[in-house]
Structure formats: C-alpha cells, structure tokens
C-alpha cells in the first residue's frame, strides 16, 4: 500500500518535472524574450529586466538556463511579479492559495456527492418516467456555457432573491468594526486546517475500523470517531479560536454561492458517468447474488451496485477535476473571488509572465495532488489493489 503511494508520488513528481520542462520550452518558444514585453513599461528598468531574466533563468546557454530554471522552481524561487513588483510570486500565491483551495475543495466535494447520488438514483430508476428530463438536465450542466451560467446564478441568488452576497468573500462592515489581531487569511488557513484534520481523522478511523476483525466494533469505532471529530471541531474552535468563529462563519456564508455554482460544473459530468457506470454494475453477477440473498433493494443499490460503480467513476475523477479547476478560474473571475484563478487571469492579461507561470504551476500542482489523492482513494476503494493479489 505504501509502496503504491510512493510509486504514484514519484510518478507525479516526474510528471511535474516534465510539465515544468514543457513550460520552459514554451517560454523559449515565445517570440522574443519575455522581458521584451516590458520595453515600454516605465516601471521596469533595464537593470530590473536583466534581473528578471536572471531569476527566470534566461541568461546563459539553453542548458544552463534550464538547470537554473528548474532549481529556482524547486527552491520556491518563482521570481518577482511584474505587475506587483517587487512582490515575490511565491508570496502572492501564498496569499491567494487558501481562498482557491477552500472553493475548490468544497465544490469538488459537493459536486461529487450530489453527482454520484443522483447518478445512482438515475440508473436505479432507469426506464421510468422523468429519466429523459433528468438526463437532459445532466447534459445541460455538463455543457452549459459556464460563465453565463455563473452570471445567471449571481443574478438569481444575489440580485433577484438577495439570499447570498455577490462579489466579496467577507462582509466588510463586520470585519471593519471588530477589533481583531488576525486577517482573513489566518481564518482561511484555520478553516482549511480544520477540514483537513477532520478528513484525516475520519479517513484514519475508517482504515483502522476496517482492519478490525470485528465488524461491529469496527463500525462503532468509525462512527464514534466521526461524532467525536465533529464535537472536537466545535470544542476546539470554541476553546482555541473563539474570536474567529463569527468570521469563519462569515467567510463560509460568502463561500456558499460560488461553491454551489462551481459544483455544477462537475455535477453533470459525474452524474452521467455514475449513471453509466451503475448501469454496467447492475448487470454484474454479484448484484444477482445480493438480490438472491434477500437483501433489501436499498442495500443492493447502495452497498453493492453503487459501491462498485464508484470505482470507474473515481478513475475518471481526474478529468472532472481538470474541468473543475478550469471552472474555478471562471468562477473566481465572475464572483470576484481573489484566488489563484483570478490571479492567473489578471496576470495573463497584464502579461505578468512570472506570476502567470507561477500561478499556472501551482494550479498544475493542485491538479497533480488531486490526482494523487484520487489514486489513493481508488486504491482504498478497491481491495484488489489495496490488498494486492
């Protein structure tokens, strides 16, 4: 199991190196030197340009450039931003990454859960009334012109109904009036840490619980941990960061609309995929066995059919994730969510090449990590890989 994870990690790192190499050659292939773009920019003096060139590794032979470029990347030296000179690209990314992570994680989670559940039900009631309508709905969400859809969502929920705020990630008045010693990123970081801790605890409990020989004890352990984790979460925030709770809730409230909107990107695809996968699974012999055993329909559907239908869905999760990341760029732009996607876009439109490449590399890292997580998840879901054999 560890070997598998290790192998995948190494593979992903290799892929990243190849990716960086490709980026390097992309920069090389660009007409002229990237620093030429700033000939007319009064902000950038020739010395600064030279410095950029050096930091981006654009001096010396091609091989020297390449080596320096790679070294810089892996030491976190992504250069300085042109548009926010002399801020380090790394610092800008560090500021915006948590916001994107929050959006991305919640939206992925939501899209996957809802997409999977509805795909499951859709397959189960195949041939019944309403199936066409639901399929068309799924196709609609899969192919809808997303920016337009996001605008419509804002218009409906933020303008027309006024349920959710638009175009901010916090309520300014609330943050303004309060005496506080922390900034929004501190709250974001803690929220992410909490989610991560909860996820790790729950997953660990699951793994330990499944290893127990007694099923009942295992299940009790898993559920106990889940409940305890939730309690611990509340207690921890109350005890350690009580002053942040209202602010965290404020951010969470602002997260709702972009998250839901973004989740629609993944939702349709995953629903259709789950449906197809589930239909295939339902033809399997073990479904017949399960039914022959006299198991209730719901158990057959959820525990047997859906559980196995999950496997192919998980493998194609990666493609969905790439989609979702692309959707994230649009979401951040439309919702003015100051995260990586917005950074990438504004950097690209201002021709801030170091920041563009930096943001893009981080988005790619995000995709790679998501890929790795999916791999591990798949391994965990499929005992044939997990237990070897």
């Amino acid at each position: 199991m560890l070997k598998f994870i290790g192998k995948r990690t190494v593979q992903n790192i290799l892929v990243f190196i190849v990716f960086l190499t490709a980026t390097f050659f992309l920069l090389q292939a660009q007409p002229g030197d990237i620093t030429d773009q700033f000939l007319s920019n009064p902000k950038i003096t020739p010395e600064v340009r030279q410095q950029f060139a050096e930091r981006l590794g654009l001096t010396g032979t091609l091989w020297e450039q390449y080596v320096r470029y790679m070294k810089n990347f892996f030491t976190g030296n992504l250069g300085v931003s042109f548009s926010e000179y002399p801020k380090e690209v790394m610092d800008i990314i560090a500021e915006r990454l948590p916001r994107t992570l929050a959006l991305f994680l919640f939206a992925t989670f939501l899209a996957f859960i809802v997409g999977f559940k509805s795909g499951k039900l859709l397959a189960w009631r195949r041939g019944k009334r309403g199936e066409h309508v639901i399929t068309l709905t799924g196709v609609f969400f899969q192919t809808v012109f997303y920016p337009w859809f996001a605008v419509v969502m804002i218009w409906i929920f933020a303008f027309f109904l006024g349920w959710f705020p638009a175009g901010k990630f916090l309520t300014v008045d609330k943050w303004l009036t309060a005496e506080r010693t922390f900034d929004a990123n501190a709250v974001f970081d803690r929220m992410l840490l909490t989610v991560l801790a909860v996820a790790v605890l729950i997953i660990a409990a699951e793994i330990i619980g499944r290893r127990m020989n007694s099923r009942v004890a295992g299940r009790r352990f898993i559920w106990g941990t889940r409940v305890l984790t939730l309690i611990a979460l509340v207690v921890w925030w109350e005890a350690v960061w009580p002053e942040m709770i209202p602010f965290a809730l404020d951010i969470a409230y602002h997260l709702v609309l972009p998250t839901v909107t973004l989740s629609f990107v993944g939702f349709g695809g995953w629903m259709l995929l789950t449906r197809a996968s589930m239909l295939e699974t339902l033809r399997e012999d073990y479904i017949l066995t399960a039914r022959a055993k006299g198991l209730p329909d719901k158990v057959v559907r959820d525990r047997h059919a859906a559980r196995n239908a999950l496997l192919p869905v998980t493998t194609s999760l990666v493609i969905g994730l790439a989609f979702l990341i692309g959707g994230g760029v649009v979401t951040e732009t439309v919702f003015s969510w100051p995260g990586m996607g917005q950074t990438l876009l504004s950097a690209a439109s201002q021709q801030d090449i170091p920041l563009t490449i930096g943001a893009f590399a981080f988005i790619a890292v995000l995709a790679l990590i998501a890929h790795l997580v999916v791999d591990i998840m798949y391994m965990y879901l499929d005992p044939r890989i997990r237990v070897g054999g």
Partner: protein
Amino acid sequence: MTQPRKLWTWLAVIAVFALIAAACGQGTPTETTTSTTAAQSSTTTTEGSTATTAPPAAQGFTYKMGIFNDLTTDNYWAYIGPESEVWNGYVLGSQHPALFTLAYPNIIHVPDLATGAANTPEEQADGTWTVTQEIRKGYMWSDGTEVTANDLVFTYNVVKDFGLGGNWPSTFNLYVPETPDDPATTDVDESAPARDGVTNIEAVDDYTVKVTFSAQPGISMWQNGIGFAPFMPEQFWGPIVDEAKNSDDPAAALYAASGEGEPSAGGLIYAGREPGAFAKNVANQDAYYAGTTYTFYADGSFRQANADKGFDEVYYGDGTGDVTLEYTDGPYAKDVLYSIYGDQNAALLALKSGEIDFMLTPLGLQSGLKQEVLDSPDLSLIANGSNGFRYLAFNMRKSPMNIREFRRAVGCMIDKEFLQQLLQGAIIPAYSLVPAANTFWANPNTEQLCKGLSGQERFDTAMGMLKDAGFTWDVEPQYDADFASLVPGTGTGMKDPDGNPVPEMEILAPGAGYDPLRSTASIWIEQWAGQLGIPAKAVPTSFSVIVDKVFAEGEAAKDWDWYILGWGLGDPSFPDFHEAFFASWQDSAEGGFNTPGYSDPQVDEWAQDLLAATDVNTARDIVHKLDAKIVEDAPYVVLFQTPVLEAYRNTLIFPFTDTLDGLQNLSGLPTSVQMQQ
C-alpha cells in the same frame, strides 16, 4: 447499518444550516452610520452660486467607497515607484505633503507646505541655479513630529542613492552626468550627453529648503517637479531605509517594506487593509489644513484661510469680486473605507443598497449602468471630461504615411460626430491634443479638420488633398452615398506620387474584447479609408502587442503602419506632453515616445522652449502653437476622449462635482465630503 449513515447525513445538514443561520444572523445589517452631534449645513455648488460654509466638525461617519482591484502595495515609495496603480493612489494619495499642490476644481497651483508662491530660481556663479523656499511651521505629522525641510532632503537622498524608478525620476528630475562611451564593452557608442536636472537639495534650516539645478529650471522641473515631490517622514522610514541599504537590492527591499503605521501629514491616515477585501484610512483631525476654507473668485484669485492655524492667504489676485466656489475642508468623515468589488454590477448593487456611498473607477461608470443610476432615486449621476485622448497614429517612416496630405485626407474622412452618435455618448469627439476641458491650456483655435462636413463633402475634400499631393488610382473611387459597397470601395490601384502602388496597410487596434470603442473606431476607419481606395485593414491586436510593435527600436520601428491607442495625460496644470510625443529626439526608434517618427525643426524648437519656460503664460503660448502645428501636420489624428460618468448616493454632499476626470481623480474628495443627516 443504514441508521448511522442517516444520522451522519442529518448531522451534516444541521451543521450546514447552523453555519448559514449563524452567518445570516451576523450578516443582518446593523446601523453602520452613527448620527453625530455636529450640526451641518449642506454645501453644494452650481455654476456661479456661492456655497455656504459648514463647520469643520467631523460628523463621525464612515465614507465608504468601492474600488475594483486590490492594492498592490501600502508603501508610498512603491506607489510612486513601480506600483503606480490608481487603486494604490486612491488610498495612499492623501498622506504626504509637498511644497505645492493643485487646488481643484480650477486646477490652480497653490502652496501646500511652502509659505507662499514659488520663488524664482537664481543663477549662481558656477552656472548652477538655486531656489530656496520657506516652509510652514506647525505642519505636523500625525505622530506629533513636525514636518521639516529635512524630510525632503531625506526623500531626495533615498531617491538618488537607491536609484528609485517609476515616477520618482520625473518627480525629482535628477541631474544625470555625461556617460562616456566605454569602448571595451560593446562596439555600440553608448555615450550620452548629460541631462540637466536637480543636483542637490539641502535644508538651510528646519524650515527652509534649498534646491540646486544644473541649469535654469522650467516649470516642469521646479514648480511642477520638485514642487510636487512628497516629503516622506524620516522618523518612520529612516530605520527601514538603513536596513534596505544593506540588502542586495536596496530599492526592492525598500519597496517591499510595509507602510502600515506610517504617520501622515494629510487629511487621512492609512489604517491597514484586508488583502482581497478592503483598505481603510482614518481621518487626521490634526492635519494642518483641516478646517481650512477655500474660496475661488471669478477673477481667478484663490483664498485659503484657517483661523485656528492663523493663516489667510490669497493668490493670483486680490481675493475680491464674485465668489465662484467656497467650501470648508473637513475631514468630516471619521474614517474612509475602500471596499473591493469584482465588477461594477456588484458595486452598483452595493451603492443602491447603501453598502457604499461612491465608487472609484478611473474610467467611470460602464454605459450599461447609466440608465440604472438614472432610474434610482437614491443615486446621482455626474459626467466629466477626461484628461486624455484616443488617437490614430501613422508610421511616418514609410510611404505613403510620410505624406502630410495623405494623413490629413484620412483624418478628414473620420467622422467623429458619427462615432459619438454610434457609441451613444461613450465618447466625446476631440480635435486638439490638450483636452478642451482643460480651458487654461487648450488652444481654442486648433484646426478642427473637416468638422461638420457631410459624407460627400468629406470625400471630396479628402480626394482633393490626395490628388493635390499627386496620388493616382487605376480606377478612381467614387463617393458612394449608400455606402453599400463595403471595403475595398470603388477605387483600385492607388499609387503614391512617385507612382509606386500604395501597399496594403494594417490598422492595429485593440480587439473588441479589450476596448469596444477603439475597436469600433478602427473598423469604421477601415471603411472610410477604403472609400478613398486606401487599402488599410483593421487588425484586432492585443494591447501589449501593439505597444511592443510601435515602441520597437531600430529597424523594427518600421514594422507597423497605423495604430490606434490612447494616452492618459499627466499633470493637467502643466501639459508638456507635446515634447515627449513629438520632439524628434523622442523618436521611438531610439527609445523615446515619438512613435510616428515625426520630426519638425519648428516643433523641436518650441518643445525646448516649453521645457525651459519659467512662467505660465509663456508656456501657454508655446503649448497653443505646438497644438495647432501638430494637429495640422497630423502625425496623430486625435479621435475622441471618453467622458467619466460617476454615481454616488444622494446622502453625500460634495463641495463641487464639475472637475476634469471626475471626482475619482480627487479620490472621491474624502476630506471634504459631508453626509446628510
């Protein structure tokens, strides 16, 4: 087995609801503007009417404005340096004093720190020129320290020693000694002549500044150069500068420092920001000019008076006669909030709901929102001219663009009034380089080429010009009243006076995505040129590529034909941009700003005179001459400027709203705005 899962689902659902409920609970609007004790009367002005004076008591409200991008820095060094984004300026622009400032809305050059009008520089025995200027006593930083001459010396030294870039060099106009060519390094002759400028700034005493120039300074170097240079608080920046000196890149280290906690001498004190969300200033009630009454008279004189500080000064006249505008500065607001919005739609919604009072945006309101504002009873809409222009430039290094009549013929065909109609007020036709709204400097007699002519008349005039210049066609174009045949028009085989065929030309213009106005103009210009048989083709090109091409140096300067871009003009109180854009030594092929490659000895001479001018009236004459000459020669065809539309809540009371570039240019008047009870 299904039981626990259900429980889990419910728990999750409850948790989510709790979150939302809590957030909603906290999100319900609480009364944010507290009423105040200070009584106030409204002060508004319309043409000619006199405003009443309000007491200088703070009302204690929060003035909330929307901005559309995060600040990229909170460090004033960086703002004047590489981070000259307007968003930084809105927040950081009101904290640092200078010797002089501009009094709006009339754009009058008046003393700030200086005790009186600018002194005249005097020539010294060694050929240098010096000027001394006294500064006021009791002008305090918000930390209680007095602003002294040493602060300017400190600022000057940092700019010089660190080689600060951005707008610092043009503010201080540092003297650059001659660069001798070092033949060892390259084959290219790198020698450069010395550039005149400031050679030294010293403090004669705490309250006297002495500036030394290498040659006689013009207005742009003294009154509008050093005169506008900010005084940076040495007590705050000194240690940071010392630390930066020891780093590899002192300038970058200085720029990277945080400006939070920096004392202010202006009406606002920077009070921090929440990245991605908002920034904040608090009012500085102890500011020197807090509570000062400003009076503008019809004869052009200007009075600033403050009983508390014990001054009552009149400039440019004797301060009698009709008062056109009078108002008393605050700050009335207790603090100023700059809230970041992603787009104007969201900000307009916030404006309607009272979440913000005003939105700061350099280009003004988007036209689609105009009606929305007009329809809203809570909002007011104002429109002002902008300090800039969009233009069509020709590459005069190539034929036929080097032929004056050719350029004028194209210029004549361009029906700017039609474009104004087409774009429904999104543009204002412009004919002169200095915006007409800048009345003091604009030349009312600058030629308005073919203005008001009908299509047929334009065509005939333009054809006349071309024929006079010796252009011929295989098939001569005919005026097509119906305009039915689009490009390439009826004329074919156009030849220049030497008989060479006129080549296909490209009109580089930003695409519809970047700027629909310029894109639309380029498409129409293609049509109009086509009517004359001129094979020009509009090519939507990204902004940076156009800039790249047209500023390319050396032979590459010939790689483009026509392009459409715009200039935002700097200091409206001294428009000396003619030199930068049209002097022959500014040729972009050699790294300057003169993209057309325009070269005219007369213009060069005037340009030099302008830079050397020491009094405003002389300068104005020169600007008028330059403007007229250049417009007639048409290296640029000035196309249009854009009006700045702005919306604010009716609860706000501005002392004036008619001002070049709109209220955003004055950062929303944060220290003089008042709010109705």
